[in-house]
């Protein structure tokens, strides 16, 4: 990967990497550091990143850095979920639909926050990043069969949360 390819990779995925870290860590400050570190490691390890594998490499690195951070996190208070609710408004929806979507997003965010890191990671990778089972298995260092079970159970847990919130049938 040359300099131009690296710049393109960063521009294309920086926000996704950052968003992923924010959701996993629920701390914007830590997420900024993690995202920066992941993007810089991509340059240092550019020889190991094959064409088309940049996104998976970045998310894998981000996930591992987030896990490390979660392990050594101190008693520092985390950012409240209220901070995560301040997201850009959807320009496509009208005010009424926008308000409904905001409520749903809030419920989803709270439900996601209650999942463990691995469950959160598979849900975000699948539903937010559209990654394949094989890519997710690579990121999480899991056999494909195990990954399917993990994803299935994570969806079940999230679904139970949303049923309890009256969102899902």
């Amino acid at each position, binding site marked *: 990967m040359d*300099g131009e390819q*690296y*710049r393109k990779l*960063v521009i294309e995925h*920086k*926000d*996704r*990497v*950052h*968003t992923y870290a*924010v959701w996993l860590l629920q701390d*914007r400050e830590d997420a*900024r*550091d993690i*995202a*920066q*570190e992941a*993007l*810089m490691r991509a*340059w*240092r390890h550019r020889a190991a990143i094959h064409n088309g594998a940049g996104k998976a490499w970045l998310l894998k690195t981000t996930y591992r850095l987030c896990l490390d951070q979660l392990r050594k996190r101190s008693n520092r208070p985390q950012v409240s979920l209220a901070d995560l609710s301040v*997201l*850009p408004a*959807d320009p496509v929806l009208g005010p009424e639909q926008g308000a409904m*979507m905001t409520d*749903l*997003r809030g419920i*989803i965010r709270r439900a*996601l926050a209650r999942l463990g890191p691995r469950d959160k990671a598979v*849900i*975000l990778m*699948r*539903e*937010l990043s559209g990654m394949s*089972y094989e890519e997710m298995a690579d990121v999480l260092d899991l056999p494909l069969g195990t990954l399917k079970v993990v*994803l*299935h159970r994570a*969806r079940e847990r*999230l*679904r139970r949360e*949303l*049923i309890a919130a009256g*969102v*899902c*049938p």
Partner: protein
Amino acid sequence: MITASGNPPGDCGRWRNAIQQRLDNRSDQAERIEIDGHLAWCSECRDYEESLLVIRGAIAAIPNIPFPEPELGSVWAGQRRGTTLPRRAPAWTGLAAAAVLALAMLASWNASSSSQASPERELARLAADARPVLRILARAFERVEEATVNEVLIGPASRAVRYIPIKWTGSSPP
């Protein structure tokens, strides 16, 4: 035993797995037709599929949180330089630098001869001994964005320095 949906218990477990596979584009045409056939009469599985679609739609609609520009600037700077600047100085760098300085000072003072050297000469000797340590400190601080001399001499490291005994060995007190 038949459940309210008309399925034998446990059967919907298999279908739910199939519904997930179809949602993730892992099913072939024959499997998709089979699933449609089951959904036509199983309301529980229809509810299940709908709930997965609600989850997918809500999460997919979450917008990206923009990566801040200052941090992006650091990424580009790191690419140009080929190194990484830490956003915040690790706590141990200031303490490590202070420990090196304190040990060097202690070694210098304890090793000072019992000769009758004048205070001025003794101070000159100590300054010469301290120079290599100060160069190490300077290099460490070059890499640290926020650490300052005050962090080392006045911050938490200073408490440790205070407890290191310093004994004047000159002929007269300084």
